[in-house]
């Protein structure tokens, strides 16, 4: 069944895939970070907070606004950029070299990483491979775009 993006169902579907591929994520190691995802569309935004603990996504919730004090960092971007990334992952089985998170966010031109504390910001890079593989699980979902 298709899940829509952006939605909590999309992240929950990734969470379920992550649990199903537990061995792979255990091999990558502990992931302890809470971060935000902000998707802009037609001047409005939808905001999600993802809380990772030990080896899994412990919780995801949609919020009106992301409190920068309560997350390590937020990845934000227009719906079109997120869509292109997810479709690229779906086509290739994983993000290709132009569509991985670090490349899209590096100079803040496509995705942007915003943060209150540099320590929180650095957590994106501390857990980069796990976060990338988490989003790469989109290749196993049927995603429709709102």
């Amino acid at each position, binding site marked *: 069944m298709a899940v829509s993006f952006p939605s909590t169902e999309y992240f929950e579907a990734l969470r379920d895939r992550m649990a199903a591929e537990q061995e792979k994520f255990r091999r990558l190691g502990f992931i*302890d970070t809470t971060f935000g995802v902000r998707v802009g569309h037609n001047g409005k935004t939808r905001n999600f907070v993802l809380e990772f*603990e*030990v080896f899994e996504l412990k919780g995801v919730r949609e919020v009106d606004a992301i409190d920068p004090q309560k997350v390590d960092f937020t990845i934000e971007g227009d719906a079109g950029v997120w869509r292109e990334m997810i479709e690229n992952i779906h086509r290739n089985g994983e993000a290709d070299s132009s569509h991985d998170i670090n*490349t899209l966010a590096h100079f*803040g031109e496509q995705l942007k990483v915003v943060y209150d504390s*540099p320590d929180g910001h*650095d957590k994106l890079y*501390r857990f980069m*491979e796990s976060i990338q593989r988490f989003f790469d699980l989109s290749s196993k979902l049927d995603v429709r775009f709102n």
Partner: protein
Amino acid sequence: MAYLATRNFLEDKDFVDKWLYTMRTGELDLSWMDAKTEKIKPHEANPRRGLTYRDLDLGSYGFTGVPEKVRGNRSYAPRGAELPEGLPDAQPWVSRKSEVWAFNTESYYEEAVSRQWNVTTDIPWERLDGVEMPETIGKALSQLMTFLTEVEMIATDTPALWLPRINPEFVEVKAFIASQAMDEARHTEAFRKRALTTGWGLMKASPMNEMALKHLRDADSFSEMSVALHLVAEGNVLTLFRFSEYLSPTDVDKRIFRLVMQDEARHVGYGMQHFKYVLENFPEKREVVHAHLDEAENISFAGAAATELTESFIILAGGGLKKENIEEGIKVTTRFNLKQMEEHFERLEKCGMPERKERSKLYQMFEMGKAAAEAAGIKLS
């Protein structure tokens, strides 16, 4: 032979007789069974995670109770053990907690252990089969890898050098520093293997780079080493790894840089937490660290501008050696250089040293570079 035992046991009749007597009679001493130590029952706070060092933060075994100045134990006796007479003085250089401690040290170590990886098997080397790169790109990539191999070798030596100097009471710090040395050894391996798989072999060593690296190795105290290594150097290298991932010509290079950046970011995290701890608990160190930063920033500025690094970045970022490639490469590399400096000052400010900007000549360079970049029409993020 640097160390001689205080007795020649092999020729000590009493010692040898006792050894033989025990064998012959089975008469045991057993006094160790009455060790005057605390009996506790640690349990896992989170069974998914397992039994962590934090779960052992209990009573005399815990790290919370370690005093600022450790005077009671200068041996290799584990924290919490009974200390009998006759333990040798291991002569640790660092017995002051605020010289080495960081908030969450134990968690950084647990994370390091759980996130280890293997260059030989975790990198999809087979995907390089048939990959053809233009000569200039291949050589630039190999030069970058050569440069990074030099960096990682000294990044292995430097923390390892401090291991025997740290009082064993700080077992969690020693464990973290040991894990860092392993991380850096793995990075050396990754970059060496990647340089050799470009087909161009290693390129040229960098005198400017090595001068900067030597400064890291030769710090006077652990805190000075940490601020120069974990914050200045590794902070810069973390930004450099992110940039290198961004520029990577193959998905194999992307994977390498994503994995090395994880380790590097963890070291920076420890460095930030340690520096905060120093500033809060050892305020006299502030001026010492400022003075050390003066030189660390001077040298890191020079190291980051090393020809062997800058020119390979310009070629990788611009895609070649044509005029338009070089113009584009300079724009992108300038943005990276400025981002590196900006993030350095962000970290220092967050650690509790906001005044650094006023004193730092590197900050003046950052402002000057930013103005020059804007005047040249280079868009900064």
